[in-house]
């Protein structure tokens, strides 16, 4: 096959581009090395801003004390949601260090995973993260986080709260949907923006919240359809 002409569009990357990218990658390597060496926390989510918002939301969903008069309290099935215009105050947040637990022990610890999961979703790690709130009065109950990598390399995280908790959001664009046609769940987009100190619906992250057997469960990710698909797998 005479196909020499097909190679005619090839060209070498510009040297400035190549050098600049290499520099960025080396810098990224250095930062990773420092973080690993210090054992400090690092957010592993592609959309850290939104995830920070989510974590805050969950930590703040401690009790109805948080709900102010001007806040709107909504019930989506059994899941309570506080809709507030007020950014969560920093002094009400808590530091909770997770421990890594082998994924094989998830079910016996009350963390039930969606199954059977389509092959395009793979677990991000061979463990899940368990956050123990014991002794921390700002947090109500323990929770666990499991992360998958979706078909487009995006991350999907399932947060399972030990108890039913209320979720604090700043959006009124909360949609009520039915999982498998019977189980009520709330779907919303965005998160608390730490820079603007306000709710930001432009953050490209969806959250799907619902209560199942006494646990509040929240799926987050960039594709709402994937979240619904995974959540429905929790219901036989």
């Amino acid at each position, binding site marked *: 096959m005479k196909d020499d*002409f*097909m190679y005619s*569009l090839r060209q070498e*990357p510009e040297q400035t581009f190549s050098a600049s990218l290499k520099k960025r*990658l080396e810098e*990224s390597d250095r930062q990773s090395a420092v973080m690993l060496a210090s*054992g400090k*926390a690092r957010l592993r989510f592609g959309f850290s801003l939104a995830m920070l918002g989510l974590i*805050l939301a969950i930590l703040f969903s401690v009790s109805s004390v948080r709900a102010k008069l001007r806040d709107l309290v909504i019930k989506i099935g059994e899941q309570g949601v506080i809709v507030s215009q007020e950014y969560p105050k920093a002094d009400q947040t808590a530091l909770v260090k997770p421990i890594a637990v082998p994924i094989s022990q998830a079910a016996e610890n009350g963390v039930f995973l969606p199954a059977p999961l389509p092959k395009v979703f793979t677990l991000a790690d061979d463990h899940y993260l368990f956050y123990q709130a014991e002794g921390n009065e700002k947090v109500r109950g323990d929770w666990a986080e499991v992360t998958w990598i979706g078909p487009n390399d995006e991350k999907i995280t399932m947060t399972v709260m030990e108890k039913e908790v209320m979720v604090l959001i700043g959006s009124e664009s909360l949609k009520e949907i039915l999982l498998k046609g019977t189980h009520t769940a709330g779907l919303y987009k965005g998160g608390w923006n730490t820079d603007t100190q306000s709710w930001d619906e432009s953050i490209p992250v969806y959250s799907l919240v619902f209560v199942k057997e006494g646990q509040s469960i929240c799926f987050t990710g960039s594709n709402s359809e994937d979240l619904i698909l995974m959540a429905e797998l929790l219901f036989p």
Partner: protein
Amino acid sequence: MKESKAITIPNVHQETLDWDEIYQSMLPRVFNYFLYRTGDLNIAQDLAGTTFERAWSKKARYRSDLASAQTWMFGIARNVFREYLRESRKRLSSLVPFEQGTQHSDGFDRDSEDTKILLRRLIAMLPEKDQELVALKYGAGLNNREIAGFLHLTESNVGTRLFRTVESLRKKMEENHER
């Protein structure tokens, strides 16, 4: 934001690879894959940059016993391109100042920018799967077996499709030159 999360360092399989070598060998191929897919130099650079940054952030998870670095990198590159395509749905792009070519044996005047522009446009008009085939073969420099693995086709199917696609492009190029 006072709240923070301490995450235990995952127990991952550590590889001892020459990442400099991987960078040097893969950058031109990943870049050209995107150049063939988009026809735009700047976009190709952006997407290649995104691919490498994403790959580098996942280096600790790379398992050479599961996939070659090439397969791993192009898996990421194809995901990056799918994301880009969803956002932009670009097909035909702006003209690109391609480097001057040299005379080859297949009869086309490779010195002509017009020829390259025509070829790029003809490629952009191909069905999506054929565009991907062409980019993987002539941009990324993969062989038919490697392409078959990515596209879930048989090796012979890849060969047949490529043959038809290239012949079709050649014919259209010739027709254009005769005008």
